[in-house]
């Protein structure tokens, strides 16, 4: 009986730690200056927070091991993918970066590609005119 | 103690509903209505009705959002 009790207490403290990480993620969501930094804070903190909470529940109720493990794997796989898709959508719809951003290599690469495409188009038009 | 959880969920739900009505952009209104059904499903779960919560989750949060965005896409393509 006493061993079971210890399991429950350890699981409860792990779950509280997970929910503290969730709160940190939301505070980061409010405080960060632009959309990309918000994605950073929100995704990482919510991933680890959910994983820790579900691990605490595994400690409390060991019979539910299967479903909780499946849920943990699912969160671990899908959360980075959704953050990547959101960031790409935000970048290509030109959500502004914050003022203190230092470098933007992707913009330079895109500009180089655009100029090359424009050059190719010009060459093709000239050939067709000839 | 269930009442405290229910009150906070109700605050979130009402804020989402007001936003869904009063916002100018349609896409933001659709996301807000998805938020309303998210909290409504947790409310059903608190009232000990897991089957209703399951249906609300799958229909309200998943299918309605997808179909609304599909319709919005069709509308935008036709009128541009």
């Amino acid at each position: 009986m006493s061993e079971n009790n210890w399991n429950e207490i350890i699981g409860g403290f792990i779950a509280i730690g997970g929910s503290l990480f969730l709160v940190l993620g939301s505070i980061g969501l409010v405080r960060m200056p632009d959309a990309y930094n918000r994605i950073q804070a929100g995704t990482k903190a919510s991933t680890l927070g959910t994983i820790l909470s579900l691990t605490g529940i595994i400690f409390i109720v060991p019979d539910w091991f299967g479903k909780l493990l499946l849920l943990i794997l699912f969160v671990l796989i899908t959360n980075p993918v959704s953050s990547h898709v959101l960031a790409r959508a935000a970048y290509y719809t030109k959500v502004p970066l914050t003022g203190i951003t230092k470098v933007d290599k992707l913009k330079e690469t895109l500009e180089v590609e655009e100029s090359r495409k424009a050059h190719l188009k010009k060459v093709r038009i000239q050939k067709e005119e000839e | 103690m269930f009442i405290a959880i229910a009150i906070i969920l109700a605050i979130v739900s009402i804020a989402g509903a007001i936003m869904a009505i009063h916002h100018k952009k349609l896409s933001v209104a659709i996301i807000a209505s998805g938020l309303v059904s998210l909290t409504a499903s947790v409310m059903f779960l608190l009232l000990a009705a897991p089957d209703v919560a399951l249906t609300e989750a799958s229909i309200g949060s998943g299918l309605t959002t997808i179909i609304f965005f599909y319709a919005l896409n069709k509308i935008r393509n036709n009128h541009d």
Partner: protein
Amino acid sequence: MFITLMLAWLLLNNSLQTEVIITGAIISLILPWLFCGKCEVFTYLRITPKALLYSVLFIFTFLTELIKANFDMAYRVLSPSLPINPGIVEVKTKLKSKIGRVILADSITLTPGTFTLDLKDDSMFIHWVDVKSTDLEKSTQLIVNKFEKYLEVMYG
């Protein structure tokens, strides 16, 4: 693919009765046959003892990096002056297979202060909260290398 579906079914049901196992086996035989013709996800996976050892090491490294990332993010969020220094840098990868690149991008997203923004041919564009160097070689060495040496053995 069959093994993955069967494992998911057994975890979901949490029981080992014969009816459950028979139903799961039939469904997880039919589903890959219907829906994925080639199933090229698992063809690059090598099954050798070294690869298994390296995948265990990879998971261990990944979990420690995840926890470190979260404490780093907690420090940045809670300190009142908000010490961030963001920027987008470019990084090269040596991995060839698609699934290896996907796993690399996912694990970069969960490491301290970085996440993948876009992926073109063999260069990744990464948003970094605290930019330490804008050079290509040096940032590659800082971000990618600690995962790449494991993934290279696992997938090639």
